[in-house]
């Protein structure tokens, strides 16, 4: 179900916790599984449950509680824009509107070519860099003026 490389990384995470607390690695394991598979299907979540010796429902509870897990397919590039107050005071709403116009989609939609999904985020802890866009959960793009967004989209289109 998951590659040997992912399993090795999960084992590294499991080793961080006491031997009888494998479940502590579930957040990292789900993040790794999502990275490999694109999103968390029931099959993938059940596999993680088996691997960590957890009840499948306990894994689903975690996957559905934390917002960065995707339980349904998303585009190749998931763009998450923080629109919370500090960011909104520094142009985040304009950044979001610009993205919506350029991509032709609204929040929680994916472009027809499957390249981009747009999501609204809540405080990434980077308000000094506002506006900020989180790309595929792991890359923080700072100071995203409309020009910077155009540049980013052009790079991701390649």
């Amino acid at each position, binding site marked *: 179900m998951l590659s040997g490389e992912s399993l090795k990384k999960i084992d590294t995470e499991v080793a*961080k*916790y*006491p031997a009888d*607390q494998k*479940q*502590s*690695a*579930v*957040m*990292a394991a*789900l*993040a790794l599984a999502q990275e490999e598979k694109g999103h968390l299907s029931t099959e993938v979540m059940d596999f993680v449950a088996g691997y*960590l010796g*957890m009840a499948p429902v*306990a894994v689903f*509870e*975690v996957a559905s*509680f*934390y*917002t*960065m*897990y995707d339980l349904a397919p998303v585009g190749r590039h998931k763009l998450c824009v923080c*629109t*919370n*107050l*500090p960011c*909104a*005071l*520094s142009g*985040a*709403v*304009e950044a*979001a*509107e610009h993205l919506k116009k350029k991509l032709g989609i609204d929040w929680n939609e994916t472009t027809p070519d499957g390249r981009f999904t747009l999501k*609204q*985020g*809540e*405080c*990434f*802890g*980077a*308000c*000094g*860099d*506002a506006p900020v866009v*989180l790309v595929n*959960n*792991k*890359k*923080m*793009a*700072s*100071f*995203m*003026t409309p020009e*910077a967004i155009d*540049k980013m989209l052009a790079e991701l289109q390649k």
Partner: protein
Amino acid sequence: MNSAHPPFDPGIYGPEAVLMKGITGENWRLKDYEARGGYAALKKILAEKMAPDAVIAELKRSALRGRGGAGFPTGLKWSFMPRQAPGAKYMVCNSDEGEPGTFKDRDILRYNPHQVIEGMAIGVYATGSTAGYNYIHGEIWDIYERFEEALAEARAAGYIGRNVLGSDFSWELYAHHGWGAYICGEETALLESIEGKKGQPRFRPPFPASYGLYGRPTTINNTETFAAVPWIMLNGGQAYLELGRPNNGGTKIFSVSGHVERPGNYEVRLGTPFAKLLEMAGGMRGGRRIKAVIPGGSSAPVVPGQVMMQTDLDYDAIAKAGSMLGSGAVIVMDETVCMVRALERLSYFYFEESCGQCTPCREGTGWMYRVVHRIESGRGRQEDLDLLANVAENIMGRTICALGDAAALPVRSFVKHFRDEFQYHIDHKHCLVGAHAAVVGNKAAV
């Protein structure tokens, strides 16, 4: 980290910086930290076989208070740990920084990660703990990776592991990343999260010092709190106290966001006038007039700009101004801001982030958001301001954790200080400030 990022400005932390002194943006590695005098405090404690009680006494003298938001005295917190209890005991660093307006821990971890590791080592030593975890906000992945690198450096150099620097002190430290849940910044939700569960806060008592991670005695401190510990142990609690004011020891990193010319982190002595911090941040953007300030992260009550201009930045002075120092996140708003729209955005946040465990918060945050939203959209009713007060009143003090209060406080303070704007929205179905000036956005961001 991103092409759009401007060059690092080494002067950004200010001339009073203690924790971030000498930071260039590049010198985060172990050898750089050691060159700045890093790990000297740990070495001294181990070489002198300093009594754990003496470490805690020094911290108490420093009047260091928790930098995550609650401001609880750190030395006192450490003294709650049952040092003699057998078995595993834990020290947990709360780097789940997601309080809107706060972005200081991200800078500490990316520019000075070893300072946090050294502070945690001293904490583990003083509390008789066996291991530590650093819980890092999910959205800052590159900082998590950097911290893992710093951990590898510290392990290789013998600062973490068995018999640290040849002493009989042993400990372990690991990084754990979140994955998008504001509530995990609440310490017991954070513990649940490390245990591989939904991040839902626990009832207290029992407090973490007796029943924490995996049911073991645990102490949780904020990243900036740990970062302050090595300096205190090297220079003495009295010296740290004298950097600030009585009961408000030391320096504090303030994250300044919103309508200022240079948003960013500034480290100043506690008790510094807000007006000076504003000046360091380049003053008001475009020279506009200050309208309001949220001085301690979005959960802190809003303060009118003119009151804030007369207020000093320490725990007691900000409390006197009717708010709280919180995490030190200073959100500055100018005269163009529609306060109804600003509150609408904050209310949406708490509605979205309520973990759903307690009914008053789960239902109340939704009520408050919907009522503020309809006032903002010109559908407000005359009774809505009383309704908001009523819902806020019924959340306050009726939930397991502080998120409920955190959602209610902005509502109460915005309506209290800017009631005329809310009333105008209800009476005229549009904004008093003016549609063109509403810089929070032309559309509700939901």
